[in-house]
């Protein structure tokens, strides 16, 4: 059911912040709890939309992830 595992793990990594171990843990909880919450309160078909919606929002609002370090602009 739902997304393949790799895509979920990938979402967690990007949401938490690449290279950040605590970020990955927080991202995993956020995705897991959020997905189940969306199953409870929203139509079941929208389950996968939650993961990608979260991914999309994080990338737009905070591209480096929740705990990631912002890379310096290379010129």
């Amino acid at each position, binding site marked *: 059911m739902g997304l393949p595992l790799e895509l979920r793990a990938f979402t967690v990594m990007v949401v938490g912040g690449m290279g950040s171990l605590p970020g990955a843990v927080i991202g995993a909880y956020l995705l897991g709890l959020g997905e189940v919450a969306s199953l409870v309160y929203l139509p079941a078909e929208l*389950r996968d939309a939650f993961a990608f919606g979260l991914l999309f929002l994080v990338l737009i609002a905070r591209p480096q992830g929740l705990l990631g370090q912002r890379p310096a602009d290379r010129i």
Partner: protein
Amino acid sequence: MDAIADFLATYSTTFAIVGINALLALSVWLTLYAGQLTLGNAAFMAIGAYTSALLGRHLGAPFPLALAAGAVAAAALAAPLGLTVFRLRGVYLAIATLAFGEVVRVILLATPITGRGQGLNGIPPKTELWHIYLSLAVVAYVLWRVQGSIAGRAWAAIREDEVAAASQGIAVRRYKLAAFVLGALLAAWAGGLSAHVTFSIDPNDFAFTKAVQILVFAVVGGIPNVLGPVLGATVFTALPELLRPFKDYRDIFQGAILLAVIIYLPRGIVTLAELRKTRRLAEIGAADVA
């Protein structure tokens, strides 16, 4: 003559799909030419397919109008999306557009009017072969001409070095956005055409695998000129038909050919002609100059 007519009749669907895939490959070529990796074109294709099919079914819209409406709908969505996602670069841009594509797919799966998981069936087969190939010829010609224009050179400059391009006074974000919106328009047009070839569409036709497939057509064909994506789409659409004698090993052959092209022709199939020249130059130690 009969043999030719038979051949055309037997393979007309394959020819149609080759042309549509070529259009899709050109849609992703636009952003690739500007150096931007986006994976949202399957979603724009879906928007074009669903919009044109629904308009035809519920409002009885004439076919060209329905196609155009689908293309405009995708472009209207691509503009605000592009404004936000082009704050990202490289692989993050690819991930964000991929996420957008998956959200579109899930929404299609959950909406009653798009038929949810069953999709839409019984779409009238209004697409003629000449519709597809006329579109392809026009688009390929326009894009070929665009390469030498101000916009084409701006895209090339952005691809080579964004900071340098900006310092030359090129409106980097505006040109990126233009490539993205035009690509969406084109993908949706191709989607509308394809929906009226295949009779039925469902959300999984436009999933991640489709996005990657479109990218493979363009990259394997070659980005240096517009011929590349057309060639890539032709080869990789016709290949399963050509490999029919190998039956069960078809996927293996196809994968092997894909790998061989990537390893030996990293700039695409269109560079095959240049290969010998480059090798000669490499022998005399002048490859860098070329």
